[in-house]
């Protein structure tokens, strides 16, 4: 964590921001799916950052993939009243 520490001012506030950073990293670790990091093990922050990068990239790919699938689906069918009813049930 030395790089984060050197960026903040060397004073009492640096200790607080270091705690903040550790807290944020642990929260990130919790967010990551189980298959990437075993949440009960203590892993290094560098590893958490690496896995976060990979996770964000995979989420981007998923959005891309889902957009394509929705595009194909909506090409063939149009929004009918039954579909609108389902979507209304999603909103409830």
């Amino acid at each position, binding site marked *: *964590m*030395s*790089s*984060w520490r*050197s*960026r*903040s001012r060397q004073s009492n506030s640096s200790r607080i*921001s270091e705690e*903040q*950073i550790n807290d*944020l*990293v642990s*929260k*990130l670790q919790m*967010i990551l799916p189980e298959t990437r990091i075993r949440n009960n093990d203590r892993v290094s*922050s*560098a590893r958490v*950052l*690496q896995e*976060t*990068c990979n*996770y*964000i*990239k995979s*989420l*981007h790919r*998923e*959005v*891309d993939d*889902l*957009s*394509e*699938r*929705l*595009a*194909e*689906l*909506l*090409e*063939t*069918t149009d*929004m*009918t009243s*039954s*579909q609108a*009813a*389902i*979507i209304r*049930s*999603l*909103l409830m």
Partner: protein
Amino acid sequence: MHVTKEFKKKTFLKQFLLGLHVSNSISNPISIEQRKNSIKLSADLAMAFARGRTHWTHALITKLGQKEENKSTLKGILGRRYQILMARYSCPLLYQKVQRRKKGVRSYRFSYNAQKRRSALKGSCVRVSPSVVARNLENRRSKVLKRLVPGGELLKGSSLLSEVLDYVISLKAQVDMMKSLWRATQVSSSSNVELIPKCSIAKEGSFLHYSK
């Protein structure tokens, strides 16, 4: 600071469906590629609106609004709000700052490499302590993160990390919403509507809460 995401479900869906409807009516999309791009645009915009005003949503909307091909769709979705939002979110200064900073990084890296080359020529190996190695690794990773998160280039330290956290949660929520929407549309287009149990759809839309 306690942040809940319950509101996001309704806002996201409303915005996303509006976007789909608008992109359908604006132009009869010729190719699947165009349709896919407009769906992606609607989804990103919906995600940004659902989250509210944070640094990354600001940067995302700015980025989306600057592309020429998106402008007509955006105008259709936002309507009267388009002018106001574009005025608020168009910050040419933001991008100028990023460009200037990029130049600075390049010159620094050049001088650092020159230094290494000089010491290598002298015959001595560049002794790098483990803390420097760790710092380089982290700098590289945070550099990648900065590129992935919209608006990340201008942040550092704990603010970057909190933005990343927020962005990851919103992305995951976006993916889940799109997945459930896709499944619902797929099922309804093929089989009987009444067979879909409500509880399974409701489960798809659950989000993570996190509190500071």
